């Protein structure tokens, strides 16, 4: 019975959406604000990657909210999992090959993540992707070497400081130049060089640290045993 009703509901949704889709032809549709960003984005923000200039420039307030959401997830996970029973069982150790391989790859992964979030304004990537790569590097170590854990204090500090840098940079914008929150007050530099686009690379580096340590603490809390 329940299946039947859900199927009917789904069919209604499909019909509605198909009807609406006819208004939005595929591949012909460049929206008004999209056009504006593509045409003016590189001059106004100095970033070669327009997606970055939208994420950290025009719509940076969204990004602030998004970082908050991630922060909340880490905190909420900790609050929920604090009182779980800890299980105790013997763990099969990782084989030597996996262990050595992961330890060999770990610096590489970190270097690569640094590349991703430093070059966020020039090539695809940025704080979130870089942070995710950092977290997966640490995940690799957790998986391959059971018992190794990250320094929690350092992790918390990098998490908080990353967020604070974002907000403080935003607040500086209130007092210089055009006087609005998250204004890009630093010089724009030359397009397609590393030191360009004003505050965007700085924010992305802060975000990389913050996202990396948040995802890291999420994984760490979920894997916590003993």
């Amino acid at each position, binding site marked *: 019975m329940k299946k039947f009703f859900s199927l009917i509901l789904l069919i209604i949704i499909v019909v509605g959406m198909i009807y609406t889709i006819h208004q939005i032809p595929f591949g012909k*549709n460049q929206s008004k604000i*999209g056009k504006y*960003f593509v045409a003016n984005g*590189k001059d106004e923000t100095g970033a070669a*990657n327009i997606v970055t200039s939208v994420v950290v420039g025009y719509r940076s307030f969204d990004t602030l909210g998004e970082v908050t959401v*991630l922060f909340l997830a880490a905190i909420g*996970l900790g609050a929920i999992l604090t009182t779980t029973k800890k299980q105790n069982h013997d763990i099969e150790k990782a084989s030597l090959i996996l262990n050595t391989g992961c330890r060999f790859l770990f610096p590489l992964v970190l270097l690569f993540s640094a590349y991703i979030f430093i070059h966020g304004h020039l090539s695809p990537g940025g704080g979130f992707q870089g942070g995710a790569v950092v977290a997966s590097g640490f995940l690799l170590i957790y998986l391959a070497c059971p018992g190794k854990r990250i320094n929690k204090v350092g992790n918390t500090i990098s998490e908080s400081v990353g967020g604070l840098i974002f907000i403080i940079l935003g607040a500086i914008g209130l007092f210089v130049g055009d006087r609005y929150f998250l204004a890009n007050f630093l010089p724009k530099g030359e397009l397609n060089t590393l030191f360009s686009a004003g505050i965007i690379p700085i924010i992305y580096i802060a975000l990389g640290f913050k996202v990396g340590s948040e995802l890291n603490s999420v994984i760490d809390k979920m894997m916590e045993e003993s």
Partner: protein
Amino acid sequence: MDFLYNYIYYIGAFGLILIGLYILLVKHNLIKMIIGLSILETGVNLFIITLGYLDNGTAPIFSKENLESNMMVDPVPQALVLTAIVIGLAVLALALSLAIRLYDSFKTLNLKKIKEQKW
């Protein structure tokens, strides 16, 4: 072929959305439902990205000389989806932690068998 070109991404996105919703509405196992949630989110993201596509377009990155702005795909949906993916991850992690707690307290993941609270 024309039909396929115009609608294949929409078919994929709606397919994912529907499968995700179906899992969420019909299944009772909590982890299964969370898998459904992740599929649903992937579908929504694919849908939003599809909205910004432009025929013969290219990515909105001015990394080389001969790129013009009128052949670039819309950057805004990409920015939105970037946000949505991270939010989805946050919800997923929270849901899974709740699932772990649920299993600790009730020794089951089947939501039908849990009747602590009633109307």
